[in-house]
């Protein structure tokens, strides 16, 4: 877009609304690139203090949706409201209240960490103190290091710190922990939790189901530009599949096994493994262990598992592989 478009940037007063008004409100949001419809009518509300995760394979429209909310893209149709502003207008008043961590963006590499934070803080009316920013992302020891000398993970943490410079009411994080080691990922999760504890709202995308499970109050799964599931992680898991899987290893000399337990068909697979799929796990386990005790069979490696968010996600996404356009 032409850069003079910003000449009309106006400083608008923050919209004051009832506290129940969602931070993000989307209705019938659509975005087309020529013939390709990247986002096909999304309805979404994110409430104050919520962590909301957008999941979906690459090319599902997650980043496009985020970039519409951030003001980088203009929607083709539908309504969008972020903190009471229309993000398509690119109000300076809105940019002052949101913090953005894009998937990959450069940063002035000849400046030091502390200089970068001072520079970006200066853009905001009520910035966080530099020491606090360094502490939140754990870069206090690297404060005087030039950006170009930082490791990949340290740079990503600096991205987060830059997004937090303005003490934003809404933090938008596009795959914030990609490239983090497990320790750093857990620190980032703690950081996000602390932020939302103080009334901030977070919208994030991630490919890590454990991340969504731990962080998200609610989530939406996006496939081919449409929401196919939305709700709390537990509800999404439950909605996708209510089936519990019982697995057990039978010794080689096991006598004949009943064909079903409490209505659940027993499927045998190689090396003595037996699997039951049931929506009534209590009864099935009871019958299975009852039979085993009566028959004198030792059940090895008995597991009863609820489907994980990852199972539910894979069921929802189907065979939509990575890398679709």
């Amino acid at each position, binding site marked *: 877009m032409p850069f003079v478009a910003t000449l009309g940037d106006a400083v608008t007063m923050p919209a004051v609304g009832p506290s129940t008004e969602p931070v993000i409100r989307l209705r019938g949001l659509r975005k087309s690139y020529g013939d390709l419809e990247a986002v096909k009518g999304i309805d979404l509300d994110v409430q104050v203090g919520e962590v909301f995760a957008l999941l979906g394979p690459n090319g599902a429209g997650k980043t496009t949706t985020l970039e519409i909310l951030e003001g980088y893209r203009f929607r083709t149709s539908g309504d969008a409201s972020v903190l009471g502003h229309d993000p398509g207008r690119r109000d*300076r008043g809105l940019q002052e209240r949101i913090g953005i961590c894009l998937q990959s963006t450069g*940063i*002035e590499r000849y400046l030091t960490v502390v*200089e970068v934070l001072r520079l970006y803080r200066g853009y905001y009316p009520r910035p966080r103190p530099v020491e606090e920013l360094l502490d939140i992302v754990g870069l206090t020891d690297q404060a005087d290091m*030039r950006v170009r000398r930082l490791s990949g993970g340290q740079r990503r943490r600096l991205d987060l710190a830059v997004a937090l410079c303005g003490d934003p009411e809404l933090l938008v994080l596009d795959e914030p922990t990609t490239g983090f080691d497990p320790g750093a990922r857990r620190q980032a999760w703690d950081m996000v939790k602390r932020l939302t504890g103080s009334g901030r709202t977070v919208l994030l995308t991630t490919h890590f189901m454990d991340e969504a499970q731990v962080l998200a109050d609610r989530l939406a799964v996006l496939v081919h530009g449409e929401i196919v599931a939305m709700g709390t992680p537990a509800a999404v898991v439950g909605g996708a599949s209510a089936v519990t899987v019982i697995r057990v290893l039978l010794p080689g000399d096991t006598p004949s096994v009943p064909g079903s337990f409490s209505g659940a068909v027993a499927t045998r697979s190689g090396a003595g493994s037996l699997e039951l799929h049931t929506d009534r796990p209590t009864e099935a386990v009871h019958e299975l262990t009852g039979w085993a005790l009566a028959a004198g069979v030792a059940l090895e490696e008995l597991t009863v598992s609820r489907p994980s968010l990852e199972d539910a996600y894979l069921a929802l996404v189907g065979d939509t592989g990575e890398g679709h356009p």
Partner: protein
Amino acid sequence: MTVSSLIARQVRYENTAFWRNPAAAFFTFAVPLIFMVLFNLILTGNGSGQDAARFYTPAIVCFSIVNACYTSIAMTVSLARDEGILKRIRGTPLPGWAYLVARMLQAVLVALLLVLIVAVVGLVAFGVPLPVGQLPLLVVAMVVSGASFCALGLAVAGLIPNAAAAPAIVNATVLPLYFISDVFVQLDDSSVLARIGDLFPIRHLANVLQAVWDPTVRPFDPIDLVWIAAWGALGLIVATRTFTWEPRS
């Protein structure tokens, strides 16, 4: 914070970053001086020493301004775009135009410093007097050409597909012009090449700077400044159409 103070601190940070990139700083400052010494040595060997020094001091000042504004803006802005720095800035409350104005001001500061250095080297090494009496005209020329060549740099940055292609494209637009614009070689005003050079802004800046250093050789003609400003306006119009904040894939 007012926009003007935002711009002022942005210039400060851009300037800090500029001096910490030794390669960029070296080429920006060393190349004009190398050319200045080379041209003088070559032509002193021809026995036209003092005339050559009088010609090349303002000519290299012209080269410095074009290099520091047009060339470096086109290259550094397309690099910042490729790296995603422009996109990040675009997500902050800093108005995009304020960021670009800051970058241009920083480029003009570098140009100013270069002009000073070249003028002093001209005096000390080649005995070319400083144009003290023409200082106001020099200031006007710097303002008009600084703004115009920066605008042209932005326009070309908008046409550059990626940072790797930037040096080739920028050099292709500017190097041939140095040869027909009284920067690297002095042409007869009535020659065909000089006439072609007259269509572009560099030769007009060279004319103004020759007038600054010695108005008896070439009197100042305001039309030269009008040409430069017109090219600058064209650059701004093109930039508004081609400039983008996001990397091009």
